[in-house]
C-alpha cells in the first residue's frame, strides 16, 4: 500500500507503520513514524521532535531537518536525515542506523546501545558513553546502501561513525560487592 499526503502532517503521522510506503510532501509534526515496524516513510520537509522514536524496522527518510530526540530508543529502524538533527538524538538507541547528512545537536547518542550513528557535519557535545569509532569497510557498505535507498547525493567516505563505548550498560566489576 502507498499513502501519499500532499501538505504538512500533525502528530504521530505514519506511527506503527507496517509494510506501507508513506510519502509526505511537506513538514511533519511530533512523533513521525513512531514505533514503525517496516516499510518506508519519506518526508520532503522537516520533522518535529521524536521522529522514528522506538521504531523497530523499515526506512525513515527526512529530506529536511529533524528536531530533538530523533531516533530516541530506536530498535532497528534506519533513519536518514538530509539536514540537521536536534539535541538528544539517538538517546538510548538500541539497534538500527541513524544517518545525519547535516549537523547533530548536543547529547547525540546518550546512553546508546548497539545502534550505528553516521554524521557528515558537526556534532555538539556527545552524549554519555557515545564515542567516535572507525569507519570500516562494512560501515561504508551499510552507508552506501542507506544513502542510495534515501536518494541522497552524499558520499559514504564523508561521514564519521559514532557508537557506544560500552562503558555504561554493563555492571562494573568494582560494584560487585554492592549487591
Amino acid at each position, binding site marked *: 500500500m502507498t499513502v501519499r499526503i500532499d501538505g*504538512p502532517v*500533525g502528530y504521530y503521522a505514519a506511527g506503527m507503520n507496517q509494510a506501507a510506503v508513506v510519502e509526505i510532501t511537506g513538514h511533519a509534526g511530533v512523533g513521525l513514524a513512531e514505533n514503525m515496524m517496516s516499510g518506508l516513510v519519506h518526508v520532503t520537509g522537516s520533522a*518535529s*521532535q521524536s521522529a522514528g522514536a522506538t521504531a523497530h524496522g523499515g526506512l525513515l527518510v527526512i529530506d529536511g*531537518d529533524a*528536531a530533538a530526540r530523533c531516533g530516541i530508543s530506536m530498535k532497528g529502524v534506519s533513519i536518514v536525515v538530509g539536514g540537521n538533527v*536536534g539535541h538528544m538524538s539517538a538517546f538510548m538507541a538500541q539497534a538500527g542506523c541513524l544517518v545525519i547528512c547535516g549537523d547533530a545537536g548536543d547529547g547525540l547518542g546518550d546512553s546508546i546501545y548497539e545502534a550505528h550513528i553516521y554524521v557528515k557535519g558537526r556534532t555538539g557535545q556527545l552524549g554519555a558513553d557515545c564515542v567516535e569509532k572507525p569507519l570500516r569497510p562494512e560501515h561504508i557498505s551499510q552507508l552506501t546502501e542507506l544513502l542510495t535507498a534515501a536518494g541522497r547525493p552524499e558520499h559514504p567516505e564523508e561521514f564519521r561513525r559514532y557508537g557506544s563505548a560500552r562503558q555504561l550498560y554493563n555492571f562494573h566489576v568494582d560494584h560487585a560487592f554492592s549487591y
Partner: protein
Amino acid sequence: MCGIAGLHLLNPKLYPHLGELLGGMLHQAAGRGNDSAGVGLYAAPGAIPASQSTVCALDQTPADQAVKLISAAGPKPGDLTAANFGQTLVVTASSTAKDLADAVLAALPKAAIISRGHDLTVLKGTGQPSQLAQDWHLAERGGWQGVAHTRMATESAVTPGGSHPFSVGFDECLIHNGSFSNHESIRKRLSRAGLSFDSLNDTEVAARFVAHQLENGATSRQALTELIKTFDGFYTLLVSSARSFAVVRDAIACKPAIIAETPDLVAVASEYRYLAGLPGIASARIFEPDPEVIYLWERPLSPAQSATTSQLALSQN
C-alpha cells in the same frame, strides 16, 4: 497543554493584517487548549499619539459608565475613551500609563488590570478561542507585533485572569506552555521584595520575575538568562516588549516550539500548522529552538516610543 503563537512583523505592509494573521494562528492553536485564550497586540508606530496610554482591565462595566466613573475618580485623564471587548475593558487617555491604571482601579475597584502601557492592548477571556477572537474584533486589528495563547489549564482556575498573556510591566507580555515546578518559592522571594500578585498562576510568577529584572536595569537577554537559572520545570516562553520578541525553552525542551523567519516576519508557534497560512512560508527558514538558548529579535525604539519610555520611567520614580 497550551498553544502559543506570535508574530513579529518586519515589513510595514503587513501591519494592517496583524490581527487577521494572528487570528488564523489562534484558530489553529485552539486544538491545544480551548478553555480560554488571550492576545497581546502592539500598535503600529504612529498609530497611537505619543502622549496617549492604554490600560486593559478585566471588567464588565459598560464602556459609557466606565468613562463616567473613571473621569469622576481621582486624576481626570483628558480625552478618555473606553470600549468593551468580551470580558476585557480597554481604556485610553492622554495620560501616563501609571496614572491611567490608578484612575481605572480607583473607579472600578473590582477590575483586574491586565496591561498598561503605550503600544500594547491585551484582550483575554474564557471560552472558545475562535469566539473570543470575534468578540475582540481580532481580524480587523493592525499592529507590528502580536502574541496569542490558548489555554488548557493545569495551574490555577479557568478564569479570564488565569489566561495568558500575563502583562505586568509596561508594554510587556509573557505567554507560556508548560508548568514551573518551583514557582511557589520564587513567588515567596519576590513577595518579600515587595511584589504583589494578581493570581495563583505559575506563569504570572515568571512575568513578575522578568518585569522585576527589567525594572532593575537588566536587558531582555539578561532577564531571560536569569529566568533560565532560576526557574525549574517545563517551559516554552514567548516574551515580548515594546521593542523585543523572544523565545526560550527549558533544558529538556519537550514543550513544542517552531520558528519561521522570512524577510517580512518572524513567527513562533507550538505546531507548524499555525504557520502554514502565513505569507512567504514556503520559502521561510523554519527551525525548532534549541534548549536554554535565548532567541531574541529587537528593533530600535521610535521617537514616540522613546518619549513614552521616558514618561514611564518618570512615572515609576
